[in-house]
């Protein structure tokens, strides 16, 4: 089980093509049954042909995924972190969900320097997780976790 951080992400980050701060760019999490990405991938790849969860073959999954909410950047002496609220496909948001997914891709929907849907990271769930008429939740880790604190966040920059 391994997440994929695309080679392009570091460069995009240093080129100010991402803004994870509150009120910054809009990030989405798309779900996949199979992983279409490699480290060389640069942008979001959608559609069932790329392994994305099929909206027609599931309940309450929309092509392209859901917008991630409550994004926030925090920084301490050594570690800067990004966090999002847990992503939930379920009764309180989209209605009860019925689908399975094994991978997720976070991407930036904003067009920056002429490119939209820049890929941030591909998440490996370690196998297919399935919801049947219930909530499908992707839980992001506590942004203060890890040692030093913050290195357990979903995305962190460690100056140590």
């Amino acid at each position, binding site marked *: *089980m391994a*997440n994929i*951080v695309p080679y392009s992400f*570091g460069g995009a*980050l240093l080129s100010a093509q991402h803004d994870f701060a509150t009120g910054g760019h809009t990030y989405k999490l798309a779900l996949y*049954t199979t992983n279409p990405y490699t480290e060389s991938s640069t942008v979001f790849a959608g559609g069932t042909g790329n392994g994305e969860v099929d909206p027609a073959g599931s309940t309450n999954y929309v092509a392209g995924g859901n917008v991630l909410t409550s994004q926030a950047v925090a920084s301490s002496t050594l570690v800067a972190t990004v966090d999002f609220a847990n992503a939930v496909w379920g009764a309180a948001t989209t209605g*009860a*969900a*019925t*689908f*399975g*997914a094994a991978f*997720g891709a976070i991407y930036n929907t904003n067009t920056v320097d002429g490119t939209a849907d820049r890929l941030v*990271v591909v*998440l*490996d*769930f*370690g196998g*297919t*997780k*399935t*919801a*049947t*008429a*219930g*909530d*499908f*939740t*992707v*839980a*992001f*880790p506590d942004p203060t*976790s*890890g040692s030093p604190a913050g*290195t*357990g*966040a*979903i*995305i*962190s*920059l*460690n100056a140590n």
Partner: protein
Amino acid sequence: MALVINDRVKETSTSTGTSQTTWTLAGAAMGFQTFNAGVGSGNTTYYCIFNQGTSQWEVGLGTLSTSTNLQRTTILDNSDNNTSAIDFAAGTKDVFCTLPASKAVYLDSTGALVPDLGYASKGFATAMAIAL
């Protein structure tokens, strides 16, 4: 009266016809236990009757009314592809405890419940940290 499904319950029988009230069990097959031992008199169970050397078979919900009589209470499937009692011809039958496919609940290759009984289940995935 409980529904009891048990392993290695198998007897022979020479009963014939379509009677759903009288079906005499003639004793356990070698290495198996009787319905009376494995299911218990007064209980129900899923059964299969197969007429040896023929194409006749029947799967149903049975009631063990006595230690040696299995009532064919509800026919679920049979070799005529309907839910009527088979008119079993003469010959030795195998009668055994089974789990009918129509009553099975299982997970498919994606982990989804089959059949969809309308019960809710949650999917929960953990996003692993990325340190740059």
